[in-house]
């Protein structure tokens, strides 16, 4: 046990003396996860936001009504509107600091009421596509709407305009205007809204409303990315020891290679604990995970890490040189991350790809983990995968143990 402990501690000391390697185990997955999160937004529902410049030369009730269309509902989520004069608007557009500039000419409301042509100027930022296009469509829709209002309520609009411009309107005129508007709407309803034929009442089972942020969905993938990187690094350590003559010399010692292997396994468990604690603490702060959840995460990562370490070690022991071991394991890590659900959820993959991914060791362990972590499953969902993982680890331990002497001698 003493030698096993020494091997484990030696590896940890070495790891801390090579701080970059340790940092890489954590930084790369966090960086990838962070970038994904930034790209898609922390709530997972981020939309592009643009700046809408508004120059209202008319400053009438109708022009305000038009501008108001951009300041409510979904449009308000897409645009931050800013009221500016023409010069400032031109400068900002030239500097590319706005998506769209909307200019409403003076006399807009009067011309609209008088059924005369009027102009709404829309200037789009050529370096942007989506937001200016949305703004243009919105203005078109509003123009069309305005046209129909003119057709239907021309008389009422004139009376309303008189009211707003301060001209005297009698009670009779006001009442007549109200009745006319009501009458027109009632007439329209008969044509626009067909009668309801049959009312069907269906009770839908309440769908579980889950509030999963993108960061939460990425969290398990980040953890498994770390496991893959660290497992590869630790498996390659066997080659470093071999090239330094350590493993061959150990063959002549009574402790031998089995205790050495066990020591490395303990070291890898310590590394996995370290990774889970660091990333788990981030989960604690940023995702508000409970402490009990973090304890289970640590346990699951230890098992999953050992699965990956055993597999990587098996590959390394079969390789003829350190370089080939490094190339082959690197060539495995990235496809495993892609297919194994670390980058993209299985649900978004083509079916055949998802099937492969779910049967990769990391994919299987990640999928099982997600059933508990993301889908709020019972802890018991982890039981069967844990048993399978332990059998896998045990089997590979025997294989690796029998491969080690040959590896050390070669």
């Amino acid at each position: 046990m003493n030698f096993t402990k020494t091997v484990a501690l030696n590896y940890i000391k070495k790891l801390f003396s090579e701080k970059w390697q340790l940092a890489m185990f954590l930084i790369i997955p966090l960086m990838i996860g962070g970038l994904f999160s930034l790209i898609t937004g922390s709530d997972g529902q981020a939309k592009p936001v643009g700046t809408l410049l508004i120059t209202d030369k008319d400053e009438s009730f109708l022009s305000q009504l038009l501008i108001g269309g951009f300041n409510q509902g979904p449009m308000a989520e897409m645009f931050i509107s800013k009221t500016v004069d023409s010069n400032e608007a031109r400068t900002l557009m030239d500097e590319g600091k706005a998506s769209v500039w909307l200019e409403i000419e003076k006399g807009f409301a009067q011309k609209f009421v008088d059924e005369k042509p009027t102009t709404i100027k829309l200037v789009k930022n050529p370096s942007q596509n989506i937001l200016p296009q949305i703004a243009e469509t919105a203005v078109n829709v509003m123009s069309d709407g305005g046209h129909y209002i003119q057709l239907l309520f021309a008389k009422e609009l004139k009376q309303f305009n008189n009211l707003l411009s301060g001209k005297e309107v009698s009670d009779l005129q006001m009442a007549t205007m109200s009745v006319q508007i009501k009458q027109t709407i009632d007439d329209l309803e008969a044509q626009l809204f067909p009668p309801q034929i049959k009312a069907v009442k269906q009770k839908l089972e309440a769908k579980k409303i889950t509030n999963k942020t993108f960061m939460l969905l990425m969290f398990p993938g980040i953890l498994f990315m770390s496991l893959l990187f660290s497992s590869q690094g630790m498996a390659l350590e066997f080659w470093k020891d071999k090239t330094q003559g350590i493993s061959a010399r150990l063959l002549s010692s009574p402790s031998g290679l089995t205790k050495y292997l066990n020591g490395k396994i303990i070291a890898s468990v310590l590394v996995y604990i370290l990774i889970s604690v660091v990333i788990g603490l981030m989960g604690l702060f940023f995702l508000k995970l409970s402490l009990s959840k973090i304890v289970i995460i640590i346990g699951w990562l230890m098992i999953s890490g050992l699965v990956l370490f055993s597999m990587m070690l098996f590959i390394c022991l079969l390789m003829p040189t350190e370089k080939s071991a490094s190339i082959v394991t690197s060539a495995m890590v990235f496809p495993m991350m892609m297919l194994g659900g670390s980058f993209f959820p299985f649900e978004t993959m083509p079916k055949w790809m998802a099937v492969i991914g779910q049967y990769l060791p990391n994919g299987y362990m990640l999928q099982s983990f997600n059933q508990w972590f993301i889908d709020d499953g019972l802890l018991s969902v982890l039981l069967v995968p844990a048993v399978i993982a332990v059998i896998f680890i045990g089997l590979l331990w025997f294989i690796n143990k029998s491969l080690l002497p040959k590896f050390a001698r070669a």
Partner: protein
Amino acid sequence: MIEIKNLSKTFANITAVDNISLKAKAGEIFGLLGPNGAGKSTTINCISGLVVASEGSISINGFNVASQAIKAKQSLGLVPQELALYEDLSAHENLVFWGSAYGLSGDELEQRIQEVLKDVGLEARQKEPVKQFSGGMKRRLNFACAILHKPAALLLDEPTVGVDPQSREHLLQAIIKLKKAGTAVIYTTHYMEEAERLCDNLAIIDGGIIIASGTVADLRAQVGERDLITLKGDFVNLDNKKALEEMNAEILELDKQEIRLLIAEASTRLSEVLETINSVYGKVTQVTIQQANLESLFIKLTGRALRDAS
């Protein structure tokens, strides 16, 4: 004690060691002398368990290497030809690693670490990472790792290759100390001077076969009291050996560029030798005289110089 009986090791179709037998008793240094590729390291690797012998038996301190491997290994220390150290760790941490590999722990381990560090002159540098050490210091540490557990038998595979004189002296003194403490040592080298200085018994190995063995005195006697004289020049008439035989010279080598002879009292008879060579074979441009040593024996036995062969 280390005892090897009829050891053979074959790799594919190559016989690296062929039916070797030898014995190193407690408190004795047994030298295995031979050029690179002679089979020295393979013999060492068979003893230490790095290589499985094809035939024969090996025992260390009375324990058979094949059937009582753990006990045999507990009695054995190995200083491999290649360094086996963690470069990123300190000398002390390396010693902890190798000490615990041999079952040492706690105060006993720490005490032994300080003792061996003193023996190899590295006490002051024990906390430094090995990567900052010179080649000689690494060799000394490599040696120290092997003797932590006070092995009854020690294998040293060319421990002084590429080592500076100071480190070499440290190592040789430490080996002599171990011998005095009763350790059985097998020492492989192709440095004649070291072998003559350290070894009680020697075996000269070439092509996997022991071609001569005995004490240093025994082996020297095979050469006799004759000196080795090496002459260089452009020589002709090489079929004529009569002139040399009349001088009682034993011809080791006779070719166009070099003549090697074993001859008694070479320095006092140098003018006679030069006169004969000049008149019969051609002009001599360079002469070297060496007293009888293991090198001359190796040349006598193989027709090659040790370093030429390596």
